[in-house]
């Protein structure tokens, strides 16, 4: 086994289903013609564009399963969107300050998982950050540093520990006694991807790839005669280059970065990802990617490891099965690439983008 293949071998073992490759050259040629065709469809949802690719026997069956999948995404957007005032999450945001709000098991499960990651990340992950994003202008796309007075007032409006769940009664209550603004932005897309994966499996789909705007991905099964669905992780230290290529097989990957949402004021770049504990935008982190069996978890964890220092991130990820992270930092004097749960050699092996597309 050569050097490159050895690394691929190690990652395959480490990721238990997500296979790391270094360039497409190592991919084996398709050995047999598949009776199924790859179909793809994209639709806007959750403030981004969802894309589903799946292998199906014919266009009609692909059409039906795509419709069902996108209908599920729409349903979850109507359930969880903080931009739709009629959503269940918005109702809870409005009413749980007055008295405990009974909610449905699905929404309760979403909130339970959200608070689970808040607790296990010591507050680095927090769905109550809505007022922070609003105060800093990220919701209205007019980014600006709020006044000190405004920042002071945010302390009372933000904090996961102010959200109390009662599993027996399925109620949500805010200890603030006031409305709060629950923001599903760092976990909702992953939650939707997991639901779509379950739906596709129930409908007999055995090979599909789901992308929630590129930031949360899931490879269901594998394409015919392939080891997985290839995904490139860009290397933000060298624009235009690829840090590594993964093959996702029954595995999700989520990425957080400040390359899309940020603003510059007085020469300083402010990121849209906040540290809820300091109420300030995260500094010193370029990009985080997390691989995990659940898209809900990888979505949340990509924020956790973006916010926490790498040493603390390692503690959070320790013991989590099949979960790894790749971080790119911009801290002078420190290592600017950190891998958690896999070989650090990935950091030194970025590959220029020379191929058309990402499909093998």
């Amino acid at each position, binding site marked *: 086994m050569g050097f490159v293949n050895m690394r691929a071998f190690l990652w395959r073992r480490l990721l238990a289903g997500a296979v790391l490759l270094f360039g497409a050259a190592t991919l084996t040629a398709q050995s047999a013609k598949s009776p199924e065709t790859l179909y793809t469809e994209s639709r806007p949802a959750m403030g981004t564009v969802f894309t589903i690719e799946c292998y199906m026997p014919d266009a009609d069956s692909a*059409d039906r399963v795509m419709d069902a999948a996108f209908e599920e995404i729409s349903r979850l957007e109507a359930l969880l969107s903080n931009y739709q005032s009629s959503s269940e999450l*918005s109702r809870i945001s*409005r009413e749980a300050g007055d008295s405990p709000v009974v909610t*449905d098991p699905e929404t309760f499960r979403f909130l339970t998982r959200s608070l689970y990651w808040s607790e296990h990340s010591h507050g680095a992950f927090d769905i109550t950050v809505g007022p922070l994003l609003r105060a800093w202008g990220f919701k209205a796309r007019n980014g600006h540093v709020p006044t000190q007075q405004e920042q002071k007032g945010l302390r009372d409006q933000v904090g996961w520990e102010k959200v109390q769940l009662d599993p027996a009664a399925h109620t949500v209550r805010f200890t603030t006694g006031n409305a709060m603004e629950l923001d599903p932005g760092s976990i909702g897309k992953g939650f939707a991807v997991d639901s779509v994966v379950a739906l596709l499996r129930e409908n007999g789909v055995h090979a599909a790839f789901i992308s929630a705007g590129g930031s949360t991905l899931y490879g269901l099964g594998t394409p015919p005669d392939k080891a997985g669905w290839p995904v490139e992780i860009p290397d933000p230290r060298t624009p235009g280059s690829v840090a590594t290529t993964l093959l996702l097989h029954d595995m999700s990957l989520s990425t957080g970065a400040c390359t899309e949402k940020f603003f510059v004021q007085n020469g300083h770049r402010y990121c849209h990802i906040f540290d809820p504990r300091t109420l300030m935008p995260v500094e010193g982190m370029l990009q985080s990617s997390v691989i995990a069996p659940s898209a809900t978890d990888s979505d949340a964890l990509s924020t956790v490891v973006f916010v926490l220092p790498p040493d603390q991130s390692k503690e959070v990820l320790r013991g989590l099965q099949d979960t790894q992270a790749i971080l790119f930092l911009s801290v002078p004097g420190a290592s600017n690439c950190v891998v958690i749960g896999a070989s650090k050699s990935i950091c030194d092996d970025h590959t220029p983008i020379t191929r058309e597309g990402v499909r093998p």
Partner: protein
Amino acid sequence: MDRRSFTQGLSALALVSSASLSSSALQTAAGAAAAPAAADDTRAARQIAHTTINTPLRLGLIGAGSRGQELVRSFLRVPGVRITATADVYPPRFEQLDKVCGYQVARHADYRALLDRKDLDVIVIATPLGLHAEHVLAALKSGRPVYGEKTMAYTIAQAREIVAAVAASKQVFQVGHQYRYSPWIRAALARVQAGEIGDVTHVLAYWNRNNSWRRPVPDPSLERLINWRLYHKWSLGLIAELGSHHMDIANWTMGSYPVAVQASGSICYYRDGRETDDNVQVILSYPGGRRMVFTSMTDNAKQGDQLWLYGTKGSLNLTLQDATFFYEPRKVTAVKEEKGDKKQEPVVTSASYSPANEMPYRGPGKSVEVKDPEDPTTAATRAFVYCVRTGERPIADEHVGLGSALAVVSANEARVAKREVEISAV
């Protein structure tokens, strides 16, 4: 009586035994009950109000398919509600429902076994349209309050039978016309009824999609069971499944049942063995020459799901998420005449045509703001539970259901017969 004050007529009619109503009696009864329009809004507000009362309520669900599951999600947001049992002929639904509930729900292959149970307080029916009447009537006969999905019945005779059965049973009955509980639609309609856009003479409604309306079928033998909406035996197609909501809003707006209907439809794109049309057009006539036009197509979603209420002073746009008013240019303005002997400026003659006068208005409207713009189904299910606990009459009662059923079933009859069909309120 002013037409605008002739509001909430169908719900108001609930105060009167429908069995004895003639067409003129309908008008009279609704007119006599016009005063409760504001009271109706108060009643609606009371029914959908946030509650912490959690008296246990055991719910039995007949039909655990996609709509049944969605209703359950909403019912489980109401304090005290537990889904105790369900009946369905397609076994995979049971596991799906358990997943929605987070616990195991007792299962029955026959709905009659569910109704025989002694541990159910209310029955919810979300079966295919062709089965609504059988299930609603049996549920009422079992002596429990019933929430029945729209359209209330497959035939007008069945709809009338349900109206009579509700009266005889004295049970709470609510039909799944949840838009009646939408906070923004209620707020907007109240303003329409107060005259904000003048006399509403037309309602134009669209529900367009760009998909086949088919559900994935694991085995061809299940095609008609899962895709029942595409076959005449259980379905009245797009007119019922989509149009019934809009026709209900038209009835609400017009304060009357429709008096006649024309309709057409065809299969123009999905020639896949389905029986129901993939596009339909319906024109409902209301007293005074007023009209409601509903169109639905399934191969272009540009217009989406929306209604326009057109009045002499403005327009109202209603969607699943909001309501927006637009206003007509003022027609007459008083001119302050110059005193003294100042010479009046002459008018300069010119070519008169100005395309701007014919262009659609493309500017912003005035959106309707409401305090709690929650999901209409969530509000409707909470209102039903309120009515069960208090005995109060639901806003979307059997008379609302009858009005929508009259429109839907008659429209389908007109579509088949290719002629105008008169609608009798009795």
